[in-house]
């Protein structure tokens, strides 16, 4: 059924993840000031994307699974966006 790819490809993906881990730890040594968090998040999202697509076979799933995999991210964005805008636009009226 969905027996895709080979053992070798799994190992390659693992190496790619190791590479990203090293880069993210390396990037943490230099201080990019305000850019620290975004860089760390981008690398982490890359790693998460790789795990989701290949290890969790999201690549071969039908569209409904895609919807249920990505919609919570939008909800999480909603929660953080509204709470943050509230927290930082509280001017003393």
């Amino acid at each position, binding site marked *: *059924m969905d027996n895709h790819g080979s053992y070798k490809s*799994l190992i390659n*993906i693992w190496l790619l993840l190791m590479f990203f881990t090293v880069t993210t730890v390396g990037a*943490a040594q230099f201080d990019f000031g305000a850019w620290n968090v975004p860089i760390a998040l981008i690398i982490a999202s890359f790693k998460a994307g790789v*795990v*989701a697509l290949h290890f*969790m076979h999201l690549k071969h799933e039908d569209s409904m*699974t895609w919807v249920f995999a990505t919609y919570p991210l939008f909800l999480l964005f909603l929660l953080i966006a509204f709470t943050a805008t509230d927290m930082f636009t509280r001017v003393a009226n």
Partner: protein
Amino acid sequence: MGIYDITTKIIKSIAYPSEMVPPITEEDDGHHHFDPETEHSSMKLGMWLFLATELLLFGGLFAAYAIYRAKYPEMFMNGSKSLDVVLGTVNTVILIFSSLTVAIAVKAIQENRIKLVKIMLWITIVCAAIFAVNKYFEYSYKFGKGIFPGTDIFYSIYFAATGVHMLHVFIGMAVLGVLLNKVYKGKYSKDNFTAIEVGGLYWHLVDLIWIYLFPLLYLVG
């Protein structure tokens, strides 16, 4: 029949209810045999829905992290510096490796290589155990230094996030343990491997959460 038999009957009835249920009709023993393809795809769709709920559960913690980091940047800087980056990196490597071994196990079961599945599942559980032990050292080191969940907001988030994640690692170990037990009993094969793939999905999620937790807590100091 003695008290011993009654108690085992009750425990057995709670643990394995299907045996207790009188068969409704002749060919069916409580769960309905749909064609394997629907059974497989619906199990995976159900699991992805459950992963969505786990993601939103941790979403609450990530939202709290985002808000309080923006509110107390310097507290998060010092707090993050005080965490042991080396132990964190080791834990990340272990978890990613365990994610690989589970992926190999899922692939192996589809090719009926039962021996490889057993080895890989064993490695995953052992990695999870090592992760837990590292975590234990890290916590006891902090408690020793007088840092507790209540000291300040950063440590509250640190302990809450890693604590809930640790809980999920334990649940993952239990799930993989049950799967391994059933593999030993020969329950799974080339045409009945859904449970292992679903268990694998859960473990990948646990790893995914840690991929985000590690940099946010340890690295952005």
